[in-house]
């Protein structure tokens, strides 16, 4: 009984945390995008426009919801739910710190402490494409459908290299539990063992989260808005939220797999501390590192132009996949020989 209660509380806390971070992120991204383009960005609502996400939320809640005449209503409604569900389910196996101690009880800072976290993430992230594909299919709009088709082809192609790039990490760390992968990097981060894997993972993560330069599923100039063209109101908000949550989880995962999670190289700052203080520090460090990756996401967004479809496919199948395979091979050989 108590276990269930703790699990529910943890789940709620995690979801609230990620919702807040996603909301802040929409603001930060708009501000930084504006700065990059010599603009100011939203700065009207509250000090420095900090309450912009709140205003956006209220606006989007009160927007009229339009379902196209010949759309498949059930699927049209389910699609954004799937996207959001998948985006938030991934969080379950993501440790954001070691543990906190409340009343003599140790509580791990992870919702579901499963031993196959790595596989769970890979399995779920490929589920995300269902939301996108169904939304495109059910909208009865050719642009939506094209966007959805692109999304599925793109995600399937990049899923492979994403998974393979992580095999190297698993080989180096010797575990598929995410918290153990993080712990194994207490001294040396995986990025130093797996630089190629890191780049492959990062590029695939861009493609998986549909961010520029791989945002073909929603390419504005050619597809209006791609798979969510026909969505409005909170359903559109759900897609938007899912996208931002995916960006956050992708950055957190990059940090966890390659940048040592909450550890700094060679200095263990957490050992002597009270576990609660250590946990708070860990969360801050973890999210700060992920924040740098998110910042990189934004810089890339305003630097690189969108890939053409065939270029995207060629990069995925002819460059990243062989590279990832080679990476696994070399890592394995080194592992055996040393």
């Amino acid at each position, binding site marked *: 009984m108590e276990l269930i209660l703790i699990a529910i509380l943890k789940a709620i806390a995690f979801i609230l945390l990620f919702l807040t971070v996603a909301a802040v992120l929409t603001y930060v991204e708009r501000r*930084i995008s504006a*700065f*990059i*383009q*010599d*603009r*100011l960005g939203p*700065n009207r609502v509250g000090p420095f426009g900090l309450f912009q996400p709140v205003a956006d939320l209220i606006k989007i809640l009160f927007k009229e919801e339009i379902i196209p005449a010949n759309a498949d209503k059930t699927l049209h409604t389910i699609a954004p739910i799937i996207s959001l569900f998948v985006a938030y389910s991934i969080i379950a196996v993501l440790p954001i710190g070691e543990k906190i101690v409340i009343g003599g009880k140790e509580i791990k800072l992870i919702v579901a402490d499963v031993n196959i976290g790595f596989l769970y993430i890979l399995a779920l992230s490929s589920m995300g494409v269902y939301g996108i594909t169904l939304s495109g299919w059910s909208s009865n709009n050719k642009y939506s459908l094209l966007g959805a088709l692109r999304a599925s082809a793109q995600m399937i192609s990049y899923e492979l290299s994403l998974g393979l790039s992580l095999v190297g990490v698993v080989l180096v760390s010797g575990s598929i539990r995410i918290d153990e992968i993080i712990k194994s990097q207490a001294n040396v981060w995986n990025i130093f063992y797996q630089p190629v894997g890191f*780049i492959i993972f990062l590029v695939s993560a861009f493609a998986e989260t549909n961010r520029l330069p791989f945002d073909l599923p929603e390419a504005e100039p050619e597809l209006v808005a791609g798979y969510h063209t026909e969505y409005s109101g909170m359903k559109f908000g759900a897609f938007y939220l899912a996208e931002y949550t995916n960006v956050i989880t992708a950055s957190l995962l990059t940090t966890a797999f390659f940048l040592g999670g909450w550890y700094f190289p060679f200095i263990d700052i957490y050992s002597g501390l009270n576990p609660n203080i250590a946990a708070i520090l860990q969360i801050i460090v973890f999210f700060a590192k992920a924040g740098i990756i998110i910042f*990189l996401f934004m*810089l*890339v967004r*305003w*630097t*690189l132009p969108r890939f053409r479809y065939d270029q995207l496919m060629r990069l995925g199948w002819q460059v990243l996949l062989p590279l990832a395979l080679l990476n696994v091979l070399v890592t394995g050989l080194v592992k055996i020989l040393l």
Partner: protein
Amino acid sequence: MEQKIDGRAKIKRRSNLNLLERLYLPEIFKGLTITFRQIFKPKFTFEYPDVKWKPPASFRGRPVLVYNDETGVERCVACGLCARVCPALAIEVVAGETELDKERYPKKFEINMLRCIYCGLCEEVCPEEAIVMSDEYELVFTNREEAIFGKDKLLVPASKLKERLDFLKKMR
């Protein structure tokens, strides 16, 4: 490799890239640093309602009637040329007689701001330099009647229009 064509530098694309350039990643990194530096560059945004843009003298804002600061008499002699030339038929002038030197004055002078296209022909044709384009660009009305500006809204003292009047003299 640069060569000048029509005064503009034309960049020749090189097709024989070396390995590092073909790897693409170093070039991406260069691009990222440029984007990053852009964040700290000065911004051009006017925060409009707080900071207003002051147009240069050559700007054609809403047409206004000039009146003399001291006497308070408008320059217009109600010749009707502006109403005649206006391509949008926005101006309506009704002439009246007056004891003053100029003998005629506009009893009624109306410009329909919904019709005006800010072409500035009225200003150009006016023999008295009585109608000029001001620097006002904020025109808001909530119904069509409000959009017809009478003399009350059109009359502006010459001192306020100095820049434009000087500009017109210079360009003549």
